């Protein structure tokens, strides 16, 4: 045996569970899971790694059953880990029904609506449009290789 440099897998999962706080700006007031939402963005937007929080800029216009801020994701599965990867995925698809997109859209922002709408991740896909229809975003397999959020 020999020592090996590594970020501990348990720590990665604990990050997803909000266990550690290296700073002094802890805003957590309770022990329950936060509420996470997904919002859809026009292909003309500029979301990416620099996105820090939800914004309505370049979000789809609120029409039909698409409301500003998007939809809450179902969080029925706690973060877990396998091998050296911690991961989490919403436990159900996210669906918007009976709406017409205000333009071509190709991105979804996952953000924490409990913690001041802070951004988590931006997911892009092929440009889509919807006309008086339904957009269903089905989640990837919740495992260490495919989960929506993975810390590897």
């Amino acid at each position, binding site marked *: 045996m020999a020592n090996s440099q590594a970020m501990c897998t348990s720590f990665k999962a604990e990050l997803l569970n909000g266990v550690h706080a290296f700073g002094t700006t802890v805003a957590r007031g309770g022990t329950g899971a936060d509420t996470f939402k997904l919002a859809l963005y026009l292909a003309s937007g500029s979301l990416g790694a620099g996105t820090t929080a939800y914004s309505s800029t370049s979000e789809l216009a609120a029409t039909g059953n698409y409301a500003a801020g998007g939809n809450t994701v179902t969080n029925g599965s706690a973060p877990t880990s396998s091998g050296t990867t911690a991961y989490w995925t919403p436990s159900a698809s996210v669906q918007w029904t009976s709406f*017409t997109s205000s333009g071509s859209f190709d991105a979804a922002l996952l953000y924490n609506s409990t913690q001041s709408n802070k951004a988590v991740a931006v997911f892009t896909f*092929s440009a*889509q449009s*919807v006309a*008086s229809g*339904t*957009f*269903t975003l*089905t*989640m990837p397999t919740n495992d260490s290789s495919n989960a929506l959020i993975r810390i590897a």
Partner: protein
Amino acid sequence: MTHQPRFNGAGWDDPALVETVRGLWPACDLQRSDGAREDENELCRWVEYRLAGEVVHRSVHLTLKQTPAFTEAAAAELS
């Protein structure tokens, strides 16, 4: 009663009346088409209804397959 075509896992169902940008419309008066596109990142299935060439209904069922992981290398770049 929904007038939205739903993806049932194998294909789109076919409601008699379809919700369109012009209101509810009999499906038999509309031209229906559907399709799928798949790559390493997603599987996208769509259904469209046209009236005189105009798209009056479009629904999309998109499955995310692979998204970027936050890696230790990425964390190192932040420090």
